[in-house]
């Protein structure tokens, strides 16, 4: 396994060396290939995981589909590549994927040292703790000496160390790279608590042998703006990804859904006309079809639809909109004007 991993990383390094000059325009490359390669989680219910029939489902997956739809007008022109927390950024840097939609937190270090650009967050998250009810713990401050299950290579791993340090608590991390293996070890009692982004905890709790035996502690110990990421140095591609996410939000702001988008084409509102490409300009500016926003909303839905479909109240995750509501409803989702 070491050998395989080394070879993979080495090949990445070589590819980084050999094919660098070919990425002049990711958008052109993607058009030439005929599909977008999107790095996703692969094992996170609600964000990126194939269902029982092998169909990819999740908020990040739908974001990837929206990007494909913006370019090709067809949400199926996408290839999902499951990545672990450890391999995700190398895969993006080396060009194995075109865009990373894998619940990755935007941080200064990743924007700079890792050479990435993060687009508009598609989910505002925060880190919490999942813990068996039977331990009788009410607050994270009571976790002194606990064994903590955590994924390696995540901001989570650093946050939890910071949190325990700043509160003068001791911890014993149990670090397993595979999400499913980590959850198995936690449910078997190898750790006292599992720490991760609150949305992930909800997803993990949903697949627990008996979800009611576990609670999520009230403390949220970090800010985790989860956003799609692209490589530094390709502004056109960055605009396409960024504007695709913003289009999902803007559609919800304008009240356009996959159901009513055809009627909205007849709207007299100039904002709606510009957004849906009835009055042209936006598409050309981005290097996309004038109908790109129409296609996204028609075939994938707006942000609210995607949220409710994957993680919302009527899913096993049952997450409230909270920070992810529109700004007009007290959340953080806000789109600049499409003009």
């Amino acid at each position, binding site marked *: 396994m070491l050998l395989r991993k080394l070879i993979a990383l080495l090949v990445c390094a070589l590819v980084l*060396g050999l094919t660098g000059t070919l990425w002049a325009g990711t958008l052109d490359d993607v058009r030439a290939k005929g599909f977008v390669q999107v790095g996703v989680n692969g094992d996170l219910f609600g964000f990126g995981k194939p269902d029982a029939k092998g169909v990819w489902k999740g908020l990040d997956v739908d974001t990837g589909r929206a990007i494909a739809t913006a370019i090709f007008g067809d949400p199926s022109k996408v290839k999902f590549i499951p990545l672990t927390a450890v391999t995700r950024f190398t895969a993006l840097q080396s060009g194995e994927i075109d865009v990373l939609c894998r619940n990755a937190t935007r941080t200064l*270090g990743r924007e700079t040292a890792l*050479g990435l650009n993060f687009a508009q967050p598609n989910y505002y998250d925060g880190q919490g703790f999942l813990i068996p009810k039977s331990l009788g713990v009410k607050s994270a401050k009571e976790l002194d000496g606990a064994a903590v299950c955590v994924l390696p290579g995540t901001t989570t*791993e650093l946050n*939890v160390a910071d949190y325990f*340090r700043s509160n003068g608590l001791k911890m014993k991390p149990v*670090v397993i790279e595979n999400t499913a293996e980590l959850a198995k*070890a936690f449910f078997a009692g190898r750790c006292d608590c599992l720490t991760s982004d609150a949305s992930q905890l909800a997803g993990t709790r949903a697949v627990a042998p008996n979800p009611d035996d576990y609670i999520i502690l009230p403390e949220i110990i970090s800010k985790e703006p989860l956003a799609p990421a692209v490589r530094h140095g390709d502004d056109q591609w960055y605009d396409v990804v960024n504007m695709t996410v913003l289009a999902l939000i803007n559609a919800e702001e304008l009240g356009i859904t996959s159901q009513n988008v055809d009627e909205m084409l007849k709207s007299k509102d100039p904002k709606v006309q510009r957004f849906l490409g009835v009055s042209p300009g936006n598409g050309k500016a981005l290097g996309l079809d004038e109908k790109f926003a129409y296609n996204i909303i028609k075939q994938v839905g707006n942000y609210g639809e995607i949220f409710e479909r994957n993680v919302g109240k009527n899913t096993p995750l049952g997450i409230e909109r909270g920070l992810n509501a529109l700004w007009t409803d007290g959340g953080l989702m806000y789109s600049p004007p499409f003009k």
Partner: protein
Amino acid sequence: MAASASPPDTDLSASRFYNDPAKRSLIYQAGVLLMVALLAYYLISNTLANVERQSIATGFGFLEKEASFEIGESLVPYSAADTYARALWVGVLNTLKVSFIGIVLTVLLGTLVGIARLSTNWLVSRMAAVYIEVLQDIPVLLQLFFWYAFFYEMLPSPRQALNPIAGIFLSNRGLMMAVPASHPAWDFMGWALLAAVGLVWLLRRWARKRQARTGQGFPVFWSGVGLLLGLPLLVWLLWGAPTEMDVPHLAGFNFKGGIGISPEFAALLLGLVLYTAAFVAEIVRAGIQSVSKGQTEAAKSLGLRPGLVLNLVVLPQALRVIIPPLTSQMLNLTKNSSLAVAIGYPDFVSVANTTINQTGQAIEGVAMIMIVYLCFSLLTSAFMNWYNKKIALVER
């Protein structure tokens, strides 16, 4: 003109340098070397250029930065406030720990099973055969998953820990054992043991020389055991025979005090040892079988006891066959220890992976991983080659 157009054949081969095989091969070698160097230069410069274009950080400056992540177990004091260099050192030590203990146990178990495989007792040899066939054929990663799951699924939580013997607790957090509470006597006993080892070595040399000179034997084994046990015991008594124990006790979520073996370490060690020992057993069996039966019969007819037959005749010849493949199994065990990532033991690869991810410096990280494993392997090989030379038959 006619002369230069058709010189004699002998002159042709001598005058044209490319017709000289020695020179020609030099030219080929230089050409290949040049191509490799050019390729390396191209790859390195291109990688650097691309890394710079994407503004990815390079260099080893990150080693001095604060790691800010915790590590589950460590042989040296470590906290999240330490540097990446220290974190990586913790990983190196953890890899060394599991490899060293693993190699020792593998050689012991492998030898036992290998000898059992040759036993004339039908049941014993069949059981050894089944062990070898089954464990050799299951991928080691699966075995690791099995043992890890076995530990955390089968064992109770710390609050219901099994307590088979006073001072020993077994739970899904691992095996906790009472150890003698810290006292200066223990340090001095360690030194006494070291001194005893030195004395035994000198004693053995002296006994050999004497036997060569006079033919008289000396009971080195038993006097050695006496020295190794007696000297530390004497020191312990001199220090007033401290008996206070540091017993693990449940505090909050976990046990405090004593020493512990984590389920991750136990699963990794067990998986690697059981898997590799199956191969070692076959190597040992092959080595012993390579010594022809006539040798044993000849030694017996000289009147040597069975123990001496094995020690003086069979083993020296068998080891020649055993050592080289045994070395490669030791290297395999060390390299396979990197599978630790899968079951959460913080070995070097695990720590280096986290470092790569937090700093984004994959090329430096992978280079370090390769260098560390290369060093481990070269050191193991060097030691085993030295040993192999030492035990090689000296023809007189």
